[in-house]
């Protein structure tokens, strides 16, 4: 059922396979002789060599080893009710598979949708669960479509997932409300909005701003823009961190007006100047790579011949500032190596 231009839902009842790939997704090492199992990622595993059996055996308590199978993935499958939700996006928005931003956005929406659906149907929070994947289509591979599958956790299904589908757009709107209106007005996510004990392993992937920007686009078609306050704070973070490095020969200015030949005056969020010239540094949203929020900067990024524009992912600035700073400094420093 097509809900709007960007949202489509499809109810199905089928086998779901739940897998456990172990720490670092390296699987488990399993002894085929005695059944002892341990994560393959363990630096000092014991399964390969002789070891104690994982069950009482008074006759022969030790297993000789030599029967290990590595990289085993644990899994189970069960039949349940599944609601498949397809989200399609248009450039500059992208849901490129494997990118952190894509994982953050889809994981966050999955949690918000589950919460909204459980509230609407008056269910316990653990009766519905949601996961996501790139759509198994060309658009999915290109980062233009992703799927969230909401399912009943009760094996056999309890009929909740199809009821969520029948709620139409309203459940998505309520999920957006959850994301936009945290009682604590938290920076990313907290126990008042998205976090719970159930999703404790996913807390790092919950960012209500990024989730809301994607869900807002799906509901209204509004191209995601960074919240002005958040953009300023993130740019400040990056600026202060670079400035703190005290790089010789590099001067920095914040919100400086620059005159770009043929384009007029543009406000540079960060202006970096070395003896070769000027570089404008700005941030782009996590889901809109290489697309600054500001129109002037957008023109400059596409058409400027005289001054290059370097854009940094806002998500990286907030989650891994040292990495964002180091990458930027390397690019700026490299330009100083020019031999004249």
């Amino acid at each position: 059922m097509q809900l709007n231009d960007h949202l489509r839902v499809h109810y199905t009842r089928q086998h779901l396979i739940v897998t456990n790939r172990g720490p670092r997704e390296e699987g488990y090492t399993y002894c085929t002789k005695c059944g002892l199992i341990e994560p393959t990622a363990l630096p000092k595993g014991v399964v390969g060599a002789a070891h104690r059996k994982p069950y009482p055996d008074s006759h022969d308590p030790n297993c000789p080893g030599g029967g290990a199978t590595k990289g085993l993935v644990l899994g189970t499958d069960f039949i349940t009710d599944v609601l498949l939700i397809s989200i399609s996006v248009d450039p500059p928005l992208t849901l490129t598979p494997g990118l952190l931003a894509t994982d953050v956005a889809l994981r966050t929406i999955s949690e918000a949708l589950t919460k909204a659906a459980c509230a609407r149907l008056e269910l316990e929070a653990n009766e519905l669960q949601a996961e996501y994947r790139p759509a198994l289509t060309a658009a999915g591979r290109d980062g233009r479509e992703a799927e969230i599958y909401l399912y009943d956790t009760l094996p056999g299904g309890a009929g909740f997932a199809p009821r969520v589908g029948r709620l139409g757009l309203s459940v998505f709107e309520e999920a957006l409300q959850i994301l936009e209106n945290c009682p604590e007005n938290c920076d990313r996510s907290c126990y008042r909005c998205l976090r719970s004990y159930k999703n404790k392993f996913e807390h790092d992937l919950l960012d209500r701003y990024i989730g809301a920007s994607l869900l807002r686009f799906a509901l209204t078609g509004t191209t995601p823009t960074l919240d002005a306050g958040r953009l300023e704070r993130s740019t400040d973070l990056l600026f202060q961190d670079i400035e703190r490095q005290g790089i010789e020969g590099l001067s920095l200015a914040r919100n400086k007006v620059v005159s770009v030949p043929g384009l007029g005056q543009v406000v540079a969020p960060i202006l970096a100047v070395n003896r070769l010239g000027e570089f404008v540094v700005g941030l782009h949203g996590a889901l809109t790579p290489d697309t600054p929020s500001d129109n002037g900067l957008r023109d400059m990024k596409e058409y400027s011949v005289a001054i290059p524009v370097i854009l940094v992912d806002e998500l990286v600035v907030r989650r891994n500032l040292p990495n964002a700073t180091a990458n930027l400094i390397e690019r700026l420093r490299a330009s100083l190596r020019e031999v004249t």
Partner: protein
Amino acid sequence: MIATEPVPLWTVDTPATWPEAPAEMTITTLSEIEACPRRWALAAAEYPELWSGHGYPPRLQLSALVGTIVHLALQTITRKLVQAACSSVQDQNGPKVMKELGGYTKVVHDCIDRVLHRFTNNPRALPLLESANRSLRARTPELRTRIQTMLCRVRLPPLQTVRAEMRESKLRAPLTIGAFTEIELRATHIGWKGKADMLVLSDETCEITDVKTGMPEERHQFQVQVYALLWCRDEELNPNHRRADRLVLRYSDEDVQVAAPTAVQLEEIERNIVARRDAALQTASQRPPEARPNRENCRYCGVRHLCDKYWTPETQFVIGADQRFTDAEVSITGRHGPSSWDAVVKLSAHSKAGTRAVLRTHHELEFRVNDCLRIIEAAIAGGDDEQPVVFTLFAVSEVYSVRSGGTATKAS
């Protein structure tokens, strides 16, 4: 290689005839022959039974494609700037030119299309084209930044006349003031030619720029000095034998100025490249040309599955084992599962001959017992605790079936 349908089989063997030594030498060809004459010959020979293109169908290598795209985009934009009589990158008309081109993003996408289009007749590259297209487009922001940063360092001459379109018209007449991209330079009397990325001529200066998208290497400096020689000795483009006075290597992150050779130094370079050319031609004329296997030469060799010297225990020992990917020659002993096969290792830098192996494919390949396969760039796992070594084929892996007598059939 990923394929949803069986890839048409084509047989390869050592070429029916080895290629003739090149009539005109270039820096690239010289480097290839000097590194490994066999590799050059296998890659340059004709394979009409495989395809209509020249040489052995090249592999699709993403890093090389990125370099080509950056080159092409810079060339496209620079030529348009010159045609629009922009006197420098500070020119007010620069953004107008970029708008006419549709902006950097469009230029990048156009260049990706143009570069990949060159592979549409290449049966070896065909199964990878879609994923390569996707990967390259996902890297558009990175490519845009690189191109814009490099473009901002371009020096354009103050032009009264525009001659950038000369190259398209294939004219080879004396050059006057102007900026010329992808300009072919020929010193016919010594049998050398080369293509400089940009030549800028003004009353005051003569500058040759070569764009490099990889890491700086010593040989790049020699290359641009050879271009200076070829320019000076080009009787058609430069009958007055004007010398280049500024040589620039333009890397992604920096410009490196190379000392322009004096007249005496040019003569030295000329003696050097003539001697090296003669030696290379002699080596390339041997039948079969000498193979020089080593880690450096073989690692990225696109024809190593054809090279008998590569598939020897000695060479595999020299190359050494990689912890993640490997080449191997195996013999199939039976089917292991729907998309996996039991095998025995015949030769590999990673495993001893006789080691049990499992070959995992992710598309349908049919083998027979005793089929001998050459696997290129498979992911490796296992092989310890008396477990079989597992060769997993992924997107860029290739498998060739070696028949008795050395004939190989491309299977994936």
